[in-house]
């Protein structure tokens, strides 16, 4: 899908939506599966986002500085008996891009451009 510079794809917007939603619930950092689940719940969908689509989108968001990521402490994973998680956090730029993206999405649904008012 071609896009204008700075524009978010629907999945990227969904990821930021879900991540900010998780943050409001006290989870500042999220991992891939958690975000896939959150997106499914928010949309009431049956299917989780595909692996390739999800991690590629997260990579794009990270490249653009909208999220940052780190490996969690391996000891934590070891204690819980599971593989180590890659943890993502939405940055300030991510929050701003999300706000702009939401406004654009809302504007396009209502036929308005961002920054314009219905008269």
């Amino acid at each position: 899908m071609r896009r204008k510079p700075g524009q978010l794809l629907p999945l990227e917007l969904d990821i930021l939506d879900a991540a900010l939603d998780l943050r409001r619930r006290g989870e500042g950092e999220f991992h891939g599966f958690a975000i896939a689940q959150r997106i499914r719940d928010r949309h009431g969908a049956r299917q989780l986002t595909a692996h390739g689509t999800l991690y590629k989108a997260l990579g794009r968001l990270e490249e653009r500085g909208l999220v940052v990521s780190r490996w969690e402490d391996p000891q934590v994973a070891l204690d819980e008996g599971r593989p180590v998680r890659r943890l993502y956090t939405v940055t300030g730029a991510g929050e701003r891009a999300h706000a702009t993206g939401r406004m654009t999405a809302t504007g396009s649904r209502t036929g308005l451009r961002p920054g314009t008012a219905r008269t």
Partner: protein
Amino acid sequence: MVVVRAWGRLYTRGLPAAQRERRLAELESDLHEHLDFARSTRQAAADTDFEVLSRLLLGVPADLAWRWAINRGARHRSLLLGRMVNVGKRVLLGLGVAVSVVLGAHFVMNGVGILLGGGEGGEPLTPWGVIEIVGGLMLLAGPALASRQPRVGAMLVVVGALVIGSTHLWLAAVNIPVGAALIAAAVVRSRRIIARRAAATG
């Protein structure tokens, strides 16, 4: 689950280790979380398998696009590095040619001056003047010929430098490194030309 791991190993094969390991570790973690969640909600094993498999299949185009983008990035970086190395070689070669031309012009003019006016005390210095003109002309002709006949051009510069070096020993410090660099450049260049001709003929 085995299929997801196998597919992950397949499409990340040959990628830089950091990117490969990261993607495989993320997939492993995702799979674990998915199965853990399925167990906690007592989802039927067949439904979980179907979900995991469909997540894999629907993500295949994105996986391949991701791999392609990484390969393209690596090619771009190697091209950029190649260009930088080429620029470095050109700068060095340009400097060598510039030094050769400046020295050549200087000695041709100096030789002509000696022939016309003699030495500082007016004594005849014809042989020295001739040597300087011949050496200087060689230094000028070498770079001019280098693009068509790199070996001949380099040889002219070296011989010219030696001729002048025999009259001005202090110039050996400049002549020898410049000559060596030009010989090296000429050898590399002529090998490339030979290889290109061989490839063209077939």
